[in-house]
């Protein structure tokens, strides 16, 4: 069917070709532009994390300086000395000073292979509840100070889950989890409910669980603000 091609048709098709290529190019450019944004976000998160670390360290140093100054003043004055001693006792109990000593180190971690099924996968991961129970069991075993991956556990500490990440003192943790409990008794801990359950889950699901006695443990000072208005030390039980 011989037919004279109209110039309008040629023009319209030229427009179509132009449009297709333009749309494809702009879509590719949009995708390329989104790539560095992701990297920038990751860099920002890492930068802010290191900032938090620096500030934590600064708080620790300032608290140490404050303690030194108080000790210096207390040498001159008797009533201040009493105050300072009381303050040091309270600080150790509140967790705002670092504690060193012998204790138990508990290591827990997710299973090596985690099934795809979301409901099943839960059994193969360490949850916030597991850590809460472990911390409570360590208190029960006589611990004086506990740190989870270097985060001191104090009266106001929360152990929570945000998605798949466990957050302690509002700091995200990355597995494996290391619980250092100074003054805890390893046999008493090993006899606790959660330790028994963890041993069972270790064989059943392959969750990482190990307990060891360590002579030199350090629980760093709590760097956050202790938001307690009224508190008194509990009397030692019989």
């Amino acid at each position: 069917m011989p037919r004279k091609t109209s110039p309008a048709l040629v023009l319209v098709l030229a427009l179509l070709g132009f449009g297709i290529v333009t749309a494809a190019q702009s879509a590719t450019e949009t995708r390329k532009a989104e790539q560095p944004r992701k990297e920038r976000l990751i860099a920002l998160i890492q930068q802010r994390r290191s900032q938090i670390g620096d500030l934590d360290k600064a708080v620790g140093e300032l608290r140490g300086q404050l303690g030194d100054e108080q000790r210096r003043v207390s040498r001159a004055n008797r009533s201040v000395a009493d105050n300072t001693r009381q303050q040091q006792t309270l600080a150790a109990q509140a967790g705002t000073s670092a504690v060193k000593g012998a204790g138990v180190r508990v290591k827990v971690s997710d299973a090596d292979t985690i099934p795809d099924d979301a409901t099943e996968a839960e059994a193969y991961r360490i949850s916030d509840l597991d850590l809460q129970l472990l911390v409570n069991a360590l208190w029960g075993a006589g611990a004086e100070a506990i740190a989870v991956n270097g985060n001191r556990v104090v009266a106001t500490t929360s152990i929570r889950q945000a998605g798949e990440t466990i957050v302690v003192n509002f700091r995200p943790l990355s597995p494996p989890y290391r619980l250092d409990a100074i003054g805890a008794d390893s046999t008493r801990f090993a006899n606790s409910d959660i330790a028994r359950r963890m041993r069972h889950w270790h064989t059943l699901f392959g969750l990482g669980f190990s307990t060891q006695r360590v002579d030199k443990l350090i629980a760093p000072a709590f760097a956050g603000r202790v938001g307690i208005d009224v508190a008194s030390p509990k009397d030692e039980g019989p």
Partner: protein
Amino acid sequence: MFALLGLLFGALVAIAVHPTVSQELGRYVAMAVVAALDASLGGVRAYLEHTFNDRIFVVAFAANAIVAIALVWIGDQLGVDLVTAIVVVFGVRIFQNVAALRRRVFGG
């Protein structure tokens, strides 16, 4: 034949000029292209059915593109994602046209 050369020429011009389209306008261009693609396939179908008419094709082409752009714009104003509607409608039509072409070319 000249029409296909026109298509090639347009593509080459776009590659050579490399026009930059902002992300916001990129959606409009993409929708216009989808609509134009439907019109072109309709044109090929009409050609094979011997009912092709230059003027109808050009008008259908322009109307499709304009309506698509207008719909995206209205959707943006209303805060409704009408892009999906356009993609679905023209997607279905493109498949129908391709099916008609296939039947015409291969029979059956």
